[in-house]
C-alpha cells in the first residue's frame, strides 16, 4: 500500500510535489514563465487573491475604495504581515514592486496595466493609491499573486532585480518559505507567521521528474502527493484509483483561461474572404480535439472569450461547427473549385491567381504538434492541405509577430481573469506591430477598437460584459481567429490529503491524514 512507502514518520506532515523542470529562479515578478510561477507563487502574495472561481478576496490589501470618479483606487494594507526574514511588510514594498519591477519586467502587467496607470503612490505605511488617466475596470483582477506578486523592497531596492541573489533564495510573505534549492528539486517549509494562519502541511518538497508519465507512476506509488498536471492519457486511469483525487481547472501556471486559437494571417489574399475562413472552420472537428488531443481535459470553445470569464463570455455567439458540407459550400461560394484529386483550386477568388491550390503553412510550437497533426488530418479529409511548420518559441515569435511570415498559426492565448489582460491584445489594431502574442491576424476594426476601450473604462461589470459580448458577435462573424478549445488542466493529489486549490497557493489550506 502506498502509505507504507511513506518512509520514516518524522512527525511533520509533508507534501511531495512533482516538478517537470527546475525554474532558473524563483522571482515571479520579473517573468510570466510558467515554470517560475508554478513553484514561486506560494512564497508570495498579491494585494488581492482570486479564488478558483475568480471571485476577488483581500490578501495583502485589507480593503479598497474608488476615489476621483474611479480614477484613483486606494488600497488599505495589512499591518500584521511580515516578510519571511522578519521585516514588516509596508506600503513601500508595494510601490517598489510596481514601479521598479512589475511595470518593467512582468510583461503582462507592463502591457496591460502599464498603459493605463499614471502612478502608484504611497499615502502612508499602510495605504497605497493607484492613479489612472481614466477609470480602469479590470484592475482588481490584475493584482493577485500571478499578475502582481509583491517583492521585499528592503532586499531589492537599489539592485538589478534580474540578477539579485534573492531570486534564488527568495523572501516573500506567502504561506510557505524557501528552504533549499538543489539539483533534484526544492524544499519549502510552512510559514508559522503567515497572516492568514499557519498552513497545516509542514513541508513542501518539489521533486524534479521531467517526464510526465513518470510523475504519474510516482503519484500512484505514493512517492508524490501532488501533481500540477496529469497527462490526458493517464487521467482515465487515475479517475478509477481510489487513492487519488483529481481537480480540474482552467488555471495554468502564469496564466489562466487559455484558449487554443487558430489564427489566419489576414495579409494573405488566400484568407481575404471570410467565407474561406468560415469554410475552413467548418472543416474542423473541434470536439475531436478535446477527445483525442486533450483526452477530455478541456471543452470546445463556444465563443471568442473564454467561459472562465463568465461576465464576458457569450455562449450565444455562433462559431463554425464541424460541417464538411457547409465547408464545401462556403469554399465554393468564395470562388474555390475542386480538381479531380479532390484538391481545392482558386477559380475566382479575390486577389488569388487562378489555379492556386488551397494549401497553406501552419506555424506552431513543437509542443503543439498533436493539434497540428490532427488539424492536418481533418483538413486533408476535405481536400485542404496543411503544411506543418513547427518552430521553437523564439523562432515562432520572430516569424509570426515580427516578420509576419506565416499563413496560419496556433497560439494558446490565455485570456486571464479579465478580457483586458488576454483578449484585447489579440484584436486591437494598434497591436498590429512586432509585439509577441498580440494581433497576429492583423485584424483591424475601429468598432471593435472602440468597444474594447469602452469596456476598459467602465467600472460596471454589467456594462463591461455587454461591450465584450458585442465584440464577440463581430469577431465571430469576421473570424480573424478561430477559437478551437478551452484547455483545462488536471491536478491530482493523494486521497490522504484534502483542501487543495488550483491556484498558486495550492497547498495553503490543505491538510493531510496520517
Amino acid at each position, binding site marked *: 500500500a502506498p502509505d507504507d512507502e511513506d518512509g520514516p514518520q518524522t512527525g511533520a506532515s509533508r507534501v511531495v510535489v512533482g516538478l517537470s523542470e527546475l525554474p532558473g529562479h524563483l522571482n515571479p515578478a520579473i517573468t510570466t514563465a510558467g515554470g517560475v510561477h508554478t513553484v514561486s507563487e506560494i512564497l508570495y502574495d498579491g494585494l488581492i487573491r482570486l479564488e478558483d472561481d475568480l471571485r476577488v478576496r483581500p490578501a495583502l490589501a485589507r480593503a479598497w475604495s474608488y476615489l476621483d470618479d474611479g480614477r484613483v483606487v486606494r488600497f488599505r494594507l495589512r499591518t500584521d504581515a511580515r516578510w519571511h526574514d522578519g521585516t514588516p511588510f509596508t506600503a513601500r514594498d508595494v510601490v517598489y514592486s510596481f514601479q521598479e519591477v512589475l511595470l518593467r519586467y512582468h510583461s503582462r502587467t507592463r502591457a496591460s496595466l502599464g498603459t493605463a496607470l499614471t502612478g502608484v503612490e504611497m499615502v502612508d505605511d499602510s495605504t497605497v493609491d493607484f492613479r489612472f488617466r481614466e477609470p480602469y475596470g479590470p484592475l482588481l483582477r490584475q493584482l493577485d499573486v500571478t499578475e502582481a506578486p509583491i517583492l521585499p523592497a528592503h532586499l531589492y531596492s537599489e539592485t538589478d532585480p534580474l540578477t539579485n541573489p534573492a531570486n534564488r533564495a527568495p523572501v516573500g510573505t506567502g504561506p510557505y518559505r524557501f528552504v533549499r534549492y538543489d539539483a533534484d528539486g526544492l524544499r519549502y517549509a510552512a510559514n508559522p507567521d503567515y497572516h492568514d494562519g499557519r498552513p497545516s502541511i509542514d513541508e513542501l518538497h518539489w521533486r524534479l521528474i521531467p*517526464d510526465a508519465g513518470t510523475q504519474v507512476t510516482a503519484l500512484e506509488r505514493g512517492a508524490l502527493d501532488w501533481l500540477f498536471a496529469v497527462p490526458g492519457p493517464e487521467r482515465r486511469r487515475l479517475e478509477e484509483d481510489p487513492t487519488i483525487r483529481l481537480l480540474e481547472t482552467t488555471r495554468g501556471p502564469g496564466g489562466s483561461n487559455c484558449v487554443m486559437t487558430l489564427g489566419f494571417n489576414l495579409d494573405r489574399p488566400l484568407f481575404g474572404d471570410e467565407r474561406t475562413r468560415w469554410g475552413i472552420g467548418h472543416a474542423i472537428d473541434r470536439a475531436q480535439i478535446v477527445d483525442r488531443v486533450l483526452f477530455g481535459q478541456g471543452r470546445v470553445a463556444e465563443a471568442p472569450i473564454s467561459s472562465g470569464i463568465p461576465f464576458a463570455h457569450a455562449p450565444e455567439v455562433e462559431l463554425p461547427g464541424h460541417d464538411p458540407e457547409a465547408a464545401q459550400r462556403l469554399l465554393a461560394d468564395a470562388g474555390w473549385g475542386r480538381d479531380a484529386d479532390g484538391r481545392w483550386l482558386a477559380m475566382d477568388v479575390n486577389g488569388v491567381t487562378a489555379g492556386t491550390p488551397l494549401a497553406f503553412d501552419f506555424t506552431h510550437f513543437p509542443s503543439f504538434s498533436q493539434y497540428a497533426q490532427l488539424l492536418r488530418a481533418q483538413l486533408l479529409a476535405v481536400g485542404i492541405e496543411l503544411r506543418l511548420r513547427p518552430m521553437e518559441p523564439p523562432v515562432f515569435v520572430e516569424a509570426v509577430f515580427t516578420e509576419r511570415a506565416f499563413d496560419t498559426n496556433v497560439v494558446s492565448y490565455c485570456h486571464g481573469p479579465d478580457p483586458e489582460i488576454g483578449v484585447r491584445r489579440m484584436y486591437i489594431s494598434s497591436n498590429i506591430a512586432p509585439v509577441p502574442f498580440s494581433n497576429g491576424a492583423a485584424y483591424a476594426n475601429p468598432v471593435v477598437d472602440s468597444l474594447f476601450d469602452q469596456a476598459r473604462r467602465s467600472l460596471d461589470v454589467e456594462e463591461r460584459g455587454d461591450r465584450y459580448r458585442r465584440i464577440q458577435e463581430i469577431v465571430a462573424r469576421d473570424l480573424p481567429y478561430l477559437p478551437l478549445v478551452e484547455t483545462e488542466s488536471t491536478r491530482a493529489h493523494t486521497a490522504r490529503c484534502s483542501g487543495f486549490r488550483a491556484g498558486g497557493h495550492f497547498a495553503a489550506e490543505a491538510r493531510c491524514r496520517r
Partner: protein
Amino acid sequence: MLRLPGRGTLRRRGTVPQVTRRYLLLRVVQIVPTILGIVLISFVLVQAAPGDPVLALAGEHGDQAYYREMRRHFALDRPLPERFGIYVSRLATGDLGMSRIQGRPVAVIIAERIPATLLLTVSALLCSSLAGLLLGIVATLRRDGAVDLVTDMVTLGLHAAPVFWVGQISILVLAAGLGIFPVFGMRSTEPQAGGLPAALDVLVHLALPALVLTSQQLAGVARVTRQTLGRELDRDYVRAALAKGLPRGYVVVRHALRLALLPVVTLVGHRMGYLLGGAVVVETIFGWPGLGTLLLSSLQSRDAPVVLGIFLLAAGAVVVANLVTDLTYGALDPRVRHG
C-alpha cells in the same frame, strides 16, 4: 572494421618510433587548436541561429523598449567578433558567462549537474567495459558453444536497439511492470540519514538508468573483445606458446588478451561521444538530474551560454578521452607507431 596499425606488414624495419616524451608533449599541444576550433564553431552556430534569445525571455508580452533593454543587458547589441572575443577571453579564465534564464554563472549551473552525469556515465563505462570484456572472454573460450551463440545474438540485438527503446521497455517491464526499480530521479523523497543509507539510495536509483546506458555500450565491447580475441587465438603465436607446454588460460590472458585489448581500448576510448549522447537520452527518460536534461531544457529556452558550455564540456571530454586512449594504446603495445 578495426585495423591495427603496424600489424602484419612491417615491411621497412627501423622506422618504428617509440612513444617518446616529445610525442606526448606534441599530442597535448595539438589539443589547443582543436579546442579553439570547437569553441569557434559552436559560438558561430549559436549566434547564427534564427530566433531572438530575448524573445524567449519575454514570454507572452513585451515591446520593443523592453527588448532593447534586455539586449543591452546581455551585451547582445555588440558586434559578433567583439562578443566572441569577450567569450574566449572569459573562457580562458574558466568563465562560461551568465545564464540568460537563470541569471547565474554557467560554470556554476553546469558544475551542479556534473556529479550526476559523471556518476551515471562512469558507472556505465565501468560496468560495460568490465562486463563486456568478461562476456567477450567467456564467449571466446567457449567458442562456438551455446554461451558464444547466445552472447552473439544478444549483443547483436543490443547493438541494433535504440537506447530510448531499451529504456522504455525496461521501464515497462522492470520498473512499472514488476516494480523492481525506482523509475525516476537520483534520490528518494525521504531524507536519508547520513552517509551510507544516502549512498545506497542513490545506488538504487542509479541501477536502471546505468543498466540501460551500460547495455548500449556493452554490446560493442563484448563484440569487439570476442572478435579480436577470437582472431588472436587463431594466430600462430598462440599455438606456439601452447607448444611450449604453457597452460591455455595463461596463454589466453597473458598473450592473446594483451593484443586483443588494443581495439577494445580504442573502442571504449573513442566512444566517449556516444556515451555522452546516450546519457542525454537516458537522463531524459529517467529524469536523471544531469547535464543531458539541462541541455535539453536550455535548448528549449534558448539559453545559449549554457548550451555552449555543455557542448564545450562534451567536446572537451571527447578530446581528453581520445588523448588518454592513444596514450594507453602506446603503453599496451610497444610496437605502436605514432605518425
